[in-house]
Protein backbone atom coordinates (compact mmCIF):
# COMPACT_ATOMS: atom_id res chain seq x y z
CA UNK A 1 0.00 0.00 0.00
CA UNK A 2 1.46 3.32 -1.04
CA UNK A 3 -0.20 5.19 1.82
CA UNK A 4 1.89 3.07 4.24
CA UNK A 5 5.16 4.11 2.66
CA UNK A 6 4.12 7.68 2.22
CA UNK A 7 2.80 8.18 5.75
CA UNK A 8 6.10 9.12 7.46
CA UNK A 9 6.90 11.37 4.52
CA UNK A 10 3.52 13.06 4.80
CA UNK A 11 3.96 13.70 8.52
CA UNK A 12 7.47 15.07 7.94
CA UNK A 13 6.19 17.41 5.24
CA UNK A 14 3.31 18.63 7.41
CA UNK A 15 5.63 19.18 10.37
CA UNK A 16 8.07 21.12 8.18
CA UNK A 17 5.22 23.24 6.79
CA UNK A 18 3.95 23.95 10.32
CA UNK A 19 7.41 25.03 11.43
CA UNK A 20 7.87 27.24 8.36
CA UNK A 21 4.46 28.87 8.86
CA UNK A 22 5.20 29.38 12.57
CA UNK A 23 8.39 31.26 11.68
CA UNK A 24 6.59 33.22 8.96
CA UNK A 25 3.89 34.16 11.46
CA UNK A 26 6.63 35.60 13.70
CA UNK A 27 7.86 37.86 10.91
CA UNK A 28 4.51 39.30 9.80
CA UNK A 29 3.22 42.41 11.50
CA UNK A 30 2.61 46.13 11.14
CA UNK A 31 5.96 47.07 12.68
CA UNK A 32 7.91 45.84 9.64
CA UNK A 33 10.93 44.30 11.36
CA UNK A 34 13.57 42.54 9.21
CA UNK A 35 13.67 38.74 9.56
CA UNK A 36 17.20 38.60 11.00
CA UNK A 37 16.44 41.38 13.51
CA UNK A 38 13.24 39.73 14.63
CA UNK A 39 14.90 36.36 15.26
CA UNK A 40 17.79 38.02 17.06
CA UNK A 41 15.39 40.00 19.24
CA UNK A 42 13.52 36.83 20.13
CA UNK A 43 16.58 35.26 21.71
CA UNK A 44 18.51 38.30 22.98
CA UNK A 45 18.00 39.54 26.52
CA UNK A 46 17.75 43.19 25.52
CA UNK A 47 14.48 44.89 26.41
CA UNK A 48 14.02 47.27 23.49
CA UNK A 49 10.92 47.81 21.37
CA UNK A 50 11.70 45.06 18.87
CA UNK A 51 12.26 42.48 21.61
CA UNK A 52 9.02 43.56 23.28
CA UNK A 53 7.09 43.15 20.03
CA UNK A 54 8.60 39.75 19.28
CA UNK A 55 8.26 38.23 22.74
CA UNK A 56 5.02 39.72 23.97
CA UNK A 57 2.98 40.22 20.78
CA UNK A 58 4.12 37.95 17.95
CA UNK A 59 5.34 34.90 19.84
CA UNK A 60 2.09 34.30 21.78
CA UNK A 61 0.12 34.87 18.58
CA UNK A 62 2.16 32.30 16.64
CA UNK A 63 2.07 29.76 19.49
CA UNK A 64 -1.69 30.12 19.87
CA UNK A 65 -2.23 29.94 16.09
CA UNK A 66 -0.37 26.64 15.91
CA UNK A 67 -1.94 25.14 19.02
CA UNK A 68 -5.50 26.20 18.23
CA UNK A 69 -5.17 24.94 14.66
CA UNK A 70 -3.85 21.60 15.92
CA UNK A 71 -6.74 21.41 18.39
CA UNK A 72 -9.35 22.01 15.70
CA UNK A 73 -7.79 19.59 13.20
CA UNK A 74 -7.33 16.88 15.80
CA UNK A 75 -10.78 17.21 17.32
CA UNK A 76 -12.39 17.25 13.85
CA UNK A 77 -10.64 14.01 12.93
CA UNK A 78 -11.49 12.41 16.28
CA UNK A 79 -15.16 13.45 16.16
CA UNK A 80 -15.58 12.25 12.57
CA UNK A 81 -14.08 8.88 13.58
CA UNK A 82 -15.98 8.60 16.84
CA UNK A 83 -19.40 9.64 15.51
CA UNK A 84 -18.66 7.94 12.16
CA UNK A 85 -20.06 11.00 10.54
CA UNK A 86 -18.26 12.90 7.77
CA UNK A 87 -19.86 16.20 8.82
CA UNK A 88 -18.82 16.11 12.48
CA UNK A 89 -16.72 19.09 13.51
CA UNK A 90 -16.53 21.29 16.65
CA UNK A 91 -17.99 24.27 14.79
CA UNK A 92 -20.91 22.45 13.15
CA UNK A 93 -21.83 20.48 16.26
CA UNK A 94 -22.16 23.66 18.32
CA UNK A 95 -19.18 22.82 20.53
CA UNK A 96 -17.30 26.00 19.61
CA UNK A 97 -20.42 28.15 20.00
CA UNK A 98 -21.19 26.66 23.41
CA UNK A 99 -17.58 27.05 24.53
CA UNK A 100 -17.87 30.70 23.44
CA UNK A 101 -20.97 31.07 25.58
CA UNK A 102 -19.16 29.63 28.60
CA UNK A 103 -16.18 31.95 28.03
CA UNK A 104 -18.45 34.97 27.52
CA UNK A 105 -20.27 34.30 30.79
CA UNK A 106 -16.95 33.94 32.63
CA UNK A 107 -15.41 37.10 31.16
CA UNK A 108 -18.30 39.55 31.15
CA UNK A 109 -19.58 38.73 34.61
CA UNK A 110 -16.09 39.47 35.92
CA UNK A 111 -15.62 35.90 37.15
CA UNK A 112 -12.45 35.36 35.11
CA UNK A 113 -10.94 38.57 36.48
CA UNK A 114 -11.38 37.24 40.01
CA UNK A 115 -10.25 33.71 39.22
CA UNK A 116 -8.25 33.29 36.00
CA UNK A 117 -8.91 29.56 35.53
CA UNK A 118 -12.64 30.27 35.44
CA UNK A 119 -12.24 31.22 31.77
CA UNK A 120 -11.02 27.89 30.36
CA UNK A 121 -13.14 25.93 32.84
CA UNK A 122 -16.34 27.74 31.86
CA UNK A 123 -15.56 27.25 28.16
CA UNK A 124 -14.88 23.56 28.83
CA UNK A 125 -18.21 23.23 30.62
CA UNK A 126 -20.00 24.81 27.67
CA UNK A 127 -18.23 22.46 25.29
CA UNK A 128 -19.08 19.34 27.34
CA UNK A 129 -22.72 20.39 27.50
CA UNK A 130 -22.83 20.78 23.71
CA UNK A 131 -21.30 17.36 22.99
CA UNK A 132 -23.65 15.67 25.45
CA UNK A 133 -26.74 17.42 24.08
CA UNK A 134 -25.87 16.60 20.48
CA UNK A 135 -25.10 13.02 21.40
CA UNK A 136 -28.29 12.63 23.39
CA UNK A 137 -30.37 14.05 20.54
CA UNK A 138 -28.67 11.96 17.90
CA UNK A 139 -28.50 8.73 19.91
CA UNK A 140 -25.93 6.00 19.30
CA UNK A 141 -27.28 5.27 15.81
CA UNK A 142 -28.05 8.85 14.89
CA UNK A 143 -27.64 9.47 11.20
CA UNK A 144 -25.68 12.35 9.72
CA UNK A 145 -28.84 14.42 9.32
CA UNK A 146 -29.85 14.19 12.99
CA UNK A 147 -26.36 15.02 14.23
CA UNK A 148 -26.18 18.10 12.00
CA UNK A 149 -29.69 19.27 12.93
CA UNK A 150 -28.89 18.89 16.62
CA UNK A 151 -25.66 20.81 16.01
CA UNK A 152 -27.50 23.64 14.27
CA UNK A 153 -29.96 23.90 17.16
CA UNK A 154 -27.18 24.00 19.74
CA UNK A 155 -25.16 26.50 17.69
CA UNK A 156 -28.00 28.96 17.25
CA UNK A 157 -29.10 28.68 20.86
CA UNK A 158 -25.58 29.23 22.18
CA UNK A 159 -25.10 32.10 19.71
CA UNK A 160 -28.31 33.75 20.86
CA UNK A 161 -27.38 33.41 24.54
CA UNK A 162 -23.89 34.79 23.84
CA UNK A 163 -25.47 37.76 22.11
CA UNK A 164 -27.89 38.26 25.01
CA UNK A 165 -25.10 38.15 27.59
CA UNK A 166 -23.06 40.69 25.61
CA UNK A 167 -26.04 42.99 25.08
CA UNK A 168 -26.86 42.99 28.79
CA UNK A 169 -23.32 44.00 29.79
CA UNK A 170 -23.10 47.57 31.11
CA UNK A 171 -19.88 47.97 29.13
CA UNK A 172 -20.75 49.50 25.74
CA UNK A 173 -17.84 47.73 24.05
CA UNK A 174 -19.14 44.28 25.00
CA UNK A 175 -22.02 44.35 22.52
CA UNK A 176 -19.56 44.85 19.66
CA UNK A 177 -17.59 41.78 20.64
CA UNK A 178 -20.11 39.31 19.34
CA UNK A 179 -17.98 39.30 16.14
CA UNK A 180 -14.95 38.08 18.04
CA UNK A 181 -16.82 35.23 19.70
CA UNK A 182 -18.49 34.06 16.49
CA UNK A 183 -15.57 34.42 14.06
CA UNK A 184 -12.43 34.25 16.18
CA UNK A 185 -9.26 36.31 16.18
CA UNK A 186 -5.70 36.19 17.51
CA UNK A 187 -5.07 39.94 17.50
CA UNK A 188 -3.06 41.11 20.52
CA UNK A 189 -3.42 37.88 22.45
CA UNK A 190 -0.65 37.73 25.05
CA UNK A 191 1.45 35.13 26.89
CA UNK A 192 -1.19 35.22 29.63
CA UNK A 193 -3.59 33.58 27.17
CA UNK A 194 -0.98 30.97 26.22
CA UNK A 195 -0.39 29.94 29.85
CA UNK A 196 -4.11 29.85 30.49
CA UNK A 197 -5.10 27.69 27.53
CA UNK A 198 -2.06 25.56 26.66
CA UNK A 199 -2.36 23.08 29.59
CA UNK A 200 -6.00 22.35 28.74
CA UNK A 201 -5.21 21.94 25.06
CA UNK A 202 -2.32 19.56 25.85
CA UNK A 203 -4.50 17.41 28.11
CA UNK A 204 -7.18 17.35 25.42
CA UNK A 205 -4.63 16.32 22.78
CA UNK A 206 -3.41 13.43 24.96
CA UNK A 207 -6.97 12.20 25.46
CA UNK A 208 -7.88 12.46 21.77
CA UNK A 209 -4.49 11.08 20.67
CA UNK A 210 -5.01 7.94 22.72
CA UNK A 211 -8.16 7.14 20.73
CA UNK A 212 -6.31 5.93 17.60
CA UNK A 213 -6.74 2.16 18.05
CA UNK A 214 -10.33 2.51 19.25
CA UNK A 215 -11.28 4.66 16.26
CA UNK A 216 -9.69 2.14 13.88
CA UNK A 217 -11.81 -0.59 15.48
CA UNK A 218 -14.93 1.57 15.37
CA UNK A 219 -14.72 1.75 11.56
CA UNK A 220 -15.94 -1.87 11.67
CA UNK A 221 -19.02 -0.94 13.72
CA UNK A 222 -19.49 -0.55 17.48
CA UNK A 223 -20.42 -4.24 18.10
CA UNK A 224 -17.32 -5.47 16.36
CA UNK A 225 -15.23 -2.89 18.17
CA UNK A 226 -16.67 -4.00 21.51
CA UNK A 227 -15.90 -7.61 20.64
CA UNK A 228 -12.30 -6.54 19.94
CA UNK A 229 -12.01 -5.36 23.53
CA UNK A 230 -12.69 -1.66 23.00
CA UNK A 231 -14.43 -0.15 26.02
CA UNK A 232 -17.02 2.08 24.40
CA UNK A 233 -17.73 4.04 27.58
CA UNK A 234 -14.08 4.90 27.96
CA UNK A 235 -13.89 5.91 24.30
CA UNK A 236 -16.88 8.16 24.77
CA UNK A 237 -15.36 9.75 27.85
CA UNK A 238 -12.05 10.42 26.08
CA UNK A 239 -13.71 11.77 22.93
CA UNK A 240 -16.13 14.05 24.75
CA UNK A 241 -13.77 15.44 27.36
CA UNK A 242 -10.73 15.52 25.07
CA UNK A 243 -12.69 17.62 22.58
CA UNK A 244 -14.21 19.77 25.30
CA UNK A 245 -10.90 20.49 27.05
CA UNK A 246 -8.96 21.35 23.92
CA UNK A 247 -11.68 23.13 21.93
CA UNK A 248 -12.97 24.84 25.07
CA UNK A 249 -9.53 26.28 25.89
CA UNK A 250 -8.92 27.27 22.26
CA UNK A 251 -12.26 29.02 21.99
CA UNK A 252 -11.87 30.73 25.36
CA UNK A 253 -8.84 32.70 24.14
CA UNK A 254 -9.51 33.08 20.40
CA UNK A 255 -13.26 32.77 19.83
CA UNK A 256 -14.95 30.19 17.60
CA UNK A 257 -13.01 29.45 14.42
CA UNK A 258 -15.12 27.40 12.05
CA UNK A 259 -14.54 24.80 9.34
CA UNK A 260 -10.90 23.92 10.15
CA UNK A 261 -11.97 20.68 11.83
CA UNK A 262 -14.16 19.82 8.86
CA UNK A 263 -11.89 20.57 5.94
CA UNK A 264 -8.52 19.38 7.21
CA UNK A 265 -9.43 15.74 8.01
CA UNK A 266 -11.27 15.42 4.69
CA UNK A 267 -8.30 16.63 2.68
CA UNK A 268 -5.84 14.42 4.53
CA UNK A 269 -7.96 11.26 4.82
CA UNK A 270 -7.19 9.89 1.32
CA UNK A 271 -3.49 10.62 1.89
CA UNK A 272 -3.25 8.48 5.05
CA UNK A 273 -5.11 5.47 3.66
CA UNK A 274 -8.34 6.30 5.53
CA UNK A 275 -7.13 4.99 8.91
CA UNK A 276 -8.38 7.15 11.79
CA UNK A 277 -5.33 6.42 13.94
CA UNK A 278 -3.08 7.87 11.25
CA UNK A 279 -5.42 10.71 10.49
CA UNK A 280 -5.18 12.09 14.04
CA UNK A 281 -1.56 13.35 14.02
CA UNK A 282 -1.75 14.36 10.36
CA UNK A 283 -4.93 16.35 11.00
CA UNK A 284 -3.41 18.09 14.00
CA UNK A 285 -0.45 19.27 11.93
CA UNK A 286 -2.72 20.16 9.00
CA UNK A 287 -4.99 22.19 11.28
CA UNK A 288 -2.00 24.08 12.65
CA UNK A 289 -0.94 24.92 9.07
CA UNK A 290 -4.42 26.17 8.16
CA UNK A 291 -4.91 28.44 11.19
CA UNK A 292 -1.35 29.80 11.00
CA UNK A 293 -1.91 30.55 7.30
CA UNK A 294 -5.26 32.21 7.97
CA UNK A 295 -3.71 34.32 10.74
CA UNK A 296 -0.84 35.37 8.46
CA UNK A 297 -3.34 36.29 5.74
CA UNK A 298 -5.54 38.47 7.99
CA UNK A 299 -2.43 40.50 8.75
CA UNK A 300 -1.43 40.79 5.08
CA UNK A 301 -4.82 41.35 3.39
CA UNK A 302 -6.10 44.18 5.58
CA UNK A 303 -3.68 44.85 8.43
CA UNK A 304 -5.57 47.89 9.71
CA UNK A 305 -9.03 46.33 9.68
CA UNK A 306 -8.62 43.55 12.23
CA UNK A 307 -10.19 40.88 10.00
CA UNK A 308 -11.53 37.90 11.89
CA UNK A 309 -9.96 34.48 11.39
CA UNK A 310 -13.33 32.79 10.87
CA UNK A 311 -13.91 34.95 7.80
CA UNK A 312 -10.97 33.37 6.02
CA UNK A 313 -11.61 29.82 7.20
CA UNK A 314 -15.26 30.16 6.10
CA UNK A 315 -14.29 31.44 2.63
CA UNK A 316 -12.45 28.15 2.12
CA UNK A 317 -14.59 26.00 4.38
CA UNK A 318 -18.15 26.89 3.41
CA UNK A 319 -17.87 25.98 -0.31
CA UNK A 320 -16.09 22.80 0.75
CA UNK A 321 -18.92 22.04 3.15
CA UNK A 322 -21.47 22.56 0.35
CA UNK A 323 -19.54 20.20 -1.88
CA UNK A 324 -19.46 17.66 0.94
CA UNK A 325 -23.22 17.98 1.47
CA UNK A 326 -23.75 17.60 -2.26
CA UNK A 327 -21.63 14.46 -2.34
CA UNK A 328 -23.23 12.87 0.72
CA UNK A 329 -26.80 13.94 0.03
CA UNK A 330 -27.75 10.44 -1.04
CA UNK A 331 -27.02 9.16 2.45
CA UNK A 332 -28.68 12.24 3.97
CA UNK A 333 -31.95 11.73 2.11
Amino acid sequence: MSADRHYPLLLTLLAAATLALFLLSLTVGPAGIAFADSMKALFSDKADGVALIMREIRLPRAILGGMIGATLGLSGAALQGYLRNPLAEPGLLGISASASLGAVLAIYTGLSAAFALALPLAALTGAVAAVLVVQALAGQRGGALIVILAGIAVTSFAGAMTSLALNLSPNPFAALEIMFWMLGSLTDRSMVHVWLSAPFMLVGWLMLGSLGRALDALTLGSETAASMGIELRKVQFLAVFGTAASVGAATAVAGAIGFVGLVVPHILRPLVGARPSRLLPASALGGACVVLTADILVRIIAPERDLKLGVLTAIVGAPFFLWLVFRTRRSLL
Partner: protein
Amino acid sequence: MMILRTALSCFVAAVLGMAAALPTFAAEPTPRRIVSMNVCTDQLAMLIAGAGQLHSVSALAGDPRASAMADEARAFAVNHALAEEIFLMEPDLILAGTFSARATVGLLRRLGFRVEEFAPARSFADVRDNIRRIGALLHRQERAAELVAQLDDGLARLRAGAPSGRTIALYEPNSYTAGAGTLANDIFTAAGLVNIAERLGVTGSTRLPLEQLIMAKPDLIGRSSSDYGAPALAQENLVHPAFRALSRQDAIDLPVAKMICGAPFTLDAAFMLQDAAAKQERR
Protein backbone atom coordinates in the same frame (compact mmCIF):
# COMPACT_ATOMS: atom_id res chain seq x y z
CA MET B 1 -31.81 109.69 -14.92
CA MET B 2 -33.33 106.58 -16.31
CA ILE B 3 -30.56 104.52 -14.79
CA LEU B 4 -30.92 106.24 -11.47
CA ARG B 5 -34.62 105.55 -11.39
CA THR B 6 -34.08 101.92 -12.24
CA ALA B 7 -31.51 101.68 -9.52
CA LEU B 8 -33.82 103.39 -7.12
CA SER B 9 -36.70 101.06 -7.92
CA CYS B 10 -34.36 98.12 -7.52
CA PHE B 11 -33.33 99.47 -4.13
CA VAL B 12 -36.94 99.97 -3.14
CA ALA B 13 -37.81 96.50 -4.31
CA ALA B 14 -34.88 95.11 -2.37
CA VAL B 15 -35.91 96.96 0.78
CA LEU B 16 -39.47 95.83 0.35
CA GLY B 17 -38.25 92.28 -0.27
CA MET B 18 -36.19 92.41 2.90
CA ALA B 19 -39.12 93.85 4.77
CA ALA B 20 -41.25 91.03 3.45
CA ALA B 21 -38.60 88.51 4.54
CA LEU B 22 -37.97 90.13 7.90
CA PRO B 23 -41.32 89.38 9.56
CA THR B 24 -40.87 85.62 8.95
CA PHE B 25 -37.41 85.85 10.52
CA ALA B 26 -38.58 87.94 13.42
CA ALA B 27 -41.68 85.79 13.74
CA GLU B 28 -39.50 82.75 14.34
CA PRO B 29 -40.39 82.63 18.03
CA THR B 30 -37.82 82.00 20.70
CA PRO B 31 -37.91 78.24 21.37
CA ARG B 32 -39.33 77.58 24.82
CA ARG B 33 -39.29 73.80 25.01
CA ILE B 34 -36.11 72.35 23.55
CA VAL B 35 -35.25 68.67 23.50
CA SER B 36 -31.67 67.61 22.78
CA MET B 37 -31.01 63.97 21.85
CA ASN B 38 -27.22 63.93 21.43
CA VAL B 39 -24.65 64.11 24.22
CA CYS B 40 -22.75 66.96 22.53
CA THR B 41 -25.76 69.16 21.72
CA ASP B 42 -26.99 68.32 25.27
CA GLN B 43 -23.96 69.96 26.82
CA LEU B 44 -23.86 72.99 24.53
CA ALA B 45 -27.58 73.53 25.08
CA MET B 46 -27.12 73.33 28.87
CA LEU B 47 -24.31 75.90 28.62
CA ILE B 48 -26.23 78.27 26.36
CA ALA B 49 -29.96 77.95 27.12
CA GLY B 50 -31.75 80.49 29.28
CA ALA B 51 -33.72 79.47 32.37
CA GLY B 52 -36.60 77.13 31.52
CA GLN B 53 -35.74 77.01 27.82
CA LEU B 54 -34.26 73.51 27.71
CA HIS B 55 -36.68 70.73 28.59
CA SER B 56 -34.85 67.44 28.07
CA VAL B 57 -31.36 66.05 27.46
CA SER B 58 -30.29 62.54 26.40
CA ALA B 59 -29.54 59.82 28.94
CA LEU B 60 -25.83 59.97 28.05
CA ALA B 61 -25.63 63.56 29.30
CA GLY B 62 -26.06 62.20 32.83
CA ASP B 63 -23.29 59.62 32.44
CA PRO B 64 -20.05 61.03 33.87
CA ARG B 65 -18.04 58.73 31.57
CA ALA B 66 -19.39 60.46 28.47
CA SER B 67 -20.48 63.87 29.69
CA ALA B 68 -18.54 66.62 31.45
CA MET B 69 -21.82 68.05 32.74
CA ALA B 70 -23.40 64.97 34.29
CA ASP B 71 -24.41 66.83 37.46
CA GLU B 72 -26.06 69.69 35.58
CA ALA B 73 -27.96 67.18 33.42
CA ARG B 74 -29.92 65.99 36.45
CA ALA B 75 -32.02 69.18 36.34
CA PHE B 76 -33.60 68.13 33.03
CA ALA B 77 -35.97 65.42 31.86
CA VAL B 78 -34.14 62.43 30.36
CA ASN B 79 -34.77 61.11 26.84
CA HIS B 80 -33.35 58.04 25.12
CA ALA B 81 -33.42 59.49 21.59
CA LEU B 82 -36.61 57.59 20.74
CA ALA B 83 -39.19 59.25 18.47
CA GLU B 84 -42.21 58.28 20.55
CA GLU B 85 -40.80 59.64 23.78
CA ILE B 86 -39.71 62.92 22.18
CA PHE B 87 -43.08 63.29 20.43
CA LEU B 88 -44.82 63.17 23.80
CA MET B 89 -42.56 65.92 25.13
CA GLU B 90 -44.03 68.29 22.53
CA PRO B 91 -40.81 70.21 21.88
CA ASP B 92 -40.68 73.29 19.67
CA LEU B 93 -37.05 72.59 18.74
CA ILE B 94 -35.10 69.33 18.64
CA LEU B 95 -31.29 69.30 18.64
CA ALA B 96 -29.71 66.15 17.20
CA GLY B 97 -26.28 64.94 16.13
CA THR B 98 -25.66 63.94 12.52
CA PHE B 99 -24.81 60.51 13.97
CA SER B 100 -28.16 60.24 15.77
CA ALA B 101 -30.33 57.40 14.45
CA ARG B 102 -31.40 58.41 10.94
CA ALA B 103 -34.76 56.73 11.28
CA THR B 104 -35.59 58.66 14.45
CA VAL B 105 -34.63 62.03 12.97
CA GLY B 106 -36.57 61.30 9.77
CA LEU B 107 -39.65 60.23 11.70
CA LEU B 108 -39.60 63.32 13.91
CA ARG B 109 -39.35 65.54 10.83
CA ARG B 110 -42.32 63.73 9.24
CA LEU B 111 -44.26 64.39 12.41
CA GLY B 112 -43.68 68.10 11.80
CA PHE B 113 -41.02 68.83 14.39
CA ARG B 114 -38.16 71.20 13.72
CA VAL B 115 -34.97 69.14 14.01
CA GLU B 116 -31.57 70.84 13.84
CA GLU B 117 -28.62 68.53 13.26
CA PHE B 118 -25.05 69.14 14.37
CA ALA B 119 -21.95 67.40 13.04
CA PRO B 120 -19.47 66.36 15.75
CA ALA B 121 -16.76 68.97 16.27
CA ARG B 122 -13.49 67.98 14.61
CA SER B 123 -11.60 71.12 15.66
CA PHE B 124 -11.89 74.16 17.90
CA ALA B 125 -13.13 76.08 14.85
CA ASP B 126 -16.07 73.65 14.67
CA VAL B 127 -16.70 74.16 18.39
CA ARG B 128 -16.90 77.91 17.82
CA ASP B 129 -19.37 77.42 14.92
CA ASN B 130 -21.56 75.02 16.90
CA ILE B 131 -21.73 77.39 19.88
CA ARG B 132 -22.71 80.33 17.64
CA ARG B 133 -25.30 78.26 15.77
CA ILE B 134 -27.00 77.07 18.95
CA GLY B 135 -26.85 80.63 20.26
CA ALA B 136 -28.71 81.86 17.18
CA LEU B 137 -31.27 79.03 17.31
CA LEU B 138 -32.00 79.67 20.98
CA HIS B 139 -31.95 83.48 20.56
CA ARG B 140 -29.10 83.55 23.06
CA GLN B 141 -26.40 85.15 20.88
CA GLU B 142 -24.89 87.05 23.80
CA ARG B 143 -24.33 83.96 25.91
CA ALA B 144 -22.83 82.20 22.88
CA ALA B 145 -20.45 85.12 22.29
CA GLU B 146 -19.39 84.85 25.94
CA LEU B 147 -18.57 81.16 25.54
CA VAL B 148 -16.67 81.77 22.29
CA ALA B 149 -14.65 84.46 24.08
CA GLN B 150 -13.88 81.96 26.88
CA LEU B 151 -12.72 79.44 24.29
CA ASP B 152 -10.53 81.94 22.42
CA ASP B 153 -9.06 83.22 25.64
CA GLY B 154 -8.11 79.69 26.69
CA LEU B 155 -6.55 78.95 23.31
CA ALA B 156 -4.55 82.17 23.51
CA ARG B 157 -3.25 81.21 26.97
CA LEU B 158 -2.24 77.77 25.65
CA ARG B 159 -0.38 79.39 22.77
CA ALA B 160 1.46 81.66 25.20
CA GLY B 161 3.43 78.66 26.46
CA ALA B 162 5.98 77.73 23.76
CA PRO B 163 5.11 74.40 22.09
CA SER B 164 7.10 71.63 23.76
CA GLY B 165 7.14 69.58 20.55
CA ARG B 166 6.91 66.37 22.60
CA THR B 167 5.18 63.49 20.86
CA ILE B 168 1.95 61.94 22.05
CA ALA B 169 -0.19 59.03 20.96
CA LEU B 170 -3.82 58.58 21.88
CA TYR B 171 -4.56 54.98 22.80
CA GLU B 172 -8.15 53.87 23.23
CA PRO B 173 -9.90 50.51 23.71
CA ASN B 174 -9.57 48.23 20.65
CA SER B 175 -6.25 50.00 19.89
CA TYR B 176 -8.00 53.00 18.38
CA THR B 177 -6.16 56.28 17.93
CA ALA B 178 -7.03 59.68 16.49
CA GLY B 179 -5.09 61.29 13.65
CA ALA B 180 -5.53 64.41 11.55
CA GLY B 181 -8.99 65.94 11.35
CA THR B 182 -10.10 64.97 14.85
CA LEU B 183 -10.86 67.05 17.92
CA ALA B 184 -8.24 65.08 19.87
CA ASN B 185 -5.60 66.08 17.32
CA ASP B 186 -6.58 69.73 17.69
CA ILE B 187 -6.38 69.40 21.48
CA PHE B 188 -2.86 67.93 21.23
CA THR B 189 -1.76 70.68 18.83
CA ALA B 190 -3.23 73.37 21.10
CA ALA B 191 -1.23 71.86 23.97
CA GLY B 192 1.95 72.25 21.91
CA LEU B 193 2.35 68.51 21.33
CA VAL B 194 2.94 66.51 18.15
CA ASN B 195 0.46 63.71 17.52
CA ILE B 196 2.28 60.49 16.53
CA ALA B 197 -0.75 59.31 14.58
CA GLU B 198 -0.79 62.46 12.45
CA ARG B 199 2.91 62.01 11.79
CA LEU B 200 2.21 58.41 10.69
CA GLY B 201 -0.30 59.79 8.18
CA VAL B 202 -3.41 58.66 10.06
CA THR B 203 -6.59 60.60 9.29
CA GLY B 204 -9.64 60.33 11.48
CA SER B 205 -10.13 57.63 14.08
CA THR B 206 -8.57 54.30 13.22
CA ARG B 207 -6.68 51.35 14.70
CA LEU B 208 -3.04 51.81 15.61
CA PRO B 209 -1.62 48.32 16.09
CA LEU B 210 0.29 47.88 19.35
CA GLU B 211 3.40 47.00 17.33
CA GLN B 212 3.37 50.38 15.58
CA LEU B 213 2.81 52.20 18.85
CA ILE B 214 5.87 50.49 20.32
CA MET B 215 8.01 51.33 17.29
CA ALA B 216 6.85 54.97 17.27
CA LYS B 217 8.03 55.49 20.88
CA PRO B 218 5.87 58.49 21.79
CA ASP B 219 7.01 60.69 24.71
CA LEU B 220 3.50 60.57 26.15
CA ILE B 221 0.64 58.12 25.79
CA GLY B 222 -2.83 59.45 26.33
CA ARG B 223 -4.93 56.60 27.66
CA SER B 224 -8.56 57.17 26.86
CA SER B 225 -10.62 54.54 28.58
CA SER B 226 -13.46 54.53 31.06
CA ASP B 227 -14.32 52.04 33.76
CA TYR B 228 -17.76 50.63 33.03
CA GLY B 229 -17.77 48.30 36.00
CA ALA B 230 -17.80 45.30 33.67
CA PRO B 231 -14.97 43.93 31.56
CA ALA B 232 -14.79 43.80 27.76
CA LEU B 233 -12.13 42.43 25.43
CA ALA B 234 -11.92 45.89 23.85
CA GLN B 235 -10.05 47.16 26.89
CA GLU B 236 -7.62 44.23 27.09
CA ASN B 237 -5.15 46.08 24.86
CA LEU B 238 -4.64 48.52 27.74
CA VAL B 239 -3.47 45.73 30.07
CA HIS B 240 -1.46 43.82 27.44
CA PRO B 241 2.01 43.08 28.89
CA ALA B 242 3.69 44.84 25.96
CA PHE B 243 1.60 47.98 26.44
CA ARG B 244 2.23 48.01 30.15
CA ALA B 245 5.98 47.73 29.59
CA LEU B 246 5.82 50.66 27.16
CA SER B 247 3.59 52.93 29.21
CA ARG B 248 5.05 52.40 32.66
CA GLN B 249 6.06 56.05 33.13
CA ASP B 250 4.55 58.05 30.37
CA ALA B 251 0.88 57.20 30.28
CA ILE B 252 -1.69 59.83 31.16
CA ASP B 253 -5.31 59.04 31.83
CA LEU B 254 -7.11 61.58 29.68
CA PRO B 255 -10.31 63.27 30.86
CA VAL B 256 -12.39 61.32 28.34
CA ALA B 257 -15.69 63.04 29.05
CA LYS B 258 -14.21 66.45 28.30
CA MET B 259 -12.77 65.28 24.99
CA ILE B 260 -15.78 63.53 23.48
CA CYS B 261 -17.60 66.78 22.79
CA GLY B 262 -16.14 70.15 21.92
CA ALA B 263 -16.93 72.96 24.38
CA PRO B 264 -14.93 75.46 26.44
CA PHE B 265 -14.32 72.70 29.03
CA THR B 266 -12.45 70.73 26.34
CA LEU B 267 -9.53 73.11 26.93
CA ASP B 268 -8.99 71.52 30.36
CA ALA B 269 -7.63 68.44 28.55
CA ALA B 270 -5.17 70.62 26.61
CA PHE B 271 -4.00 72.40 29.78
CA MET B 272 -3.52 69.06 31.51
CA LEU B 273 -1.40 67.74 28.63
CA GLN B 274 0.65 70.92 28.48
CA ASP B 275 1.44 70.50 32.19
CA ALA B 276 2.32 66.84 31.74
CA ALA B 277 4.73 67.66 28.90
CA ALA B 278 6.35 70.40 31.00
CA LYS B 279 6.77 68.00 33.94
CA GLN B 280 8.35 65.41 31.69
CA GLU B 281 10.80 68.00 30.32
CA ARG B 282 11.95 68.84 33.82
CA ARG B 283 12.52 65.20 34.65
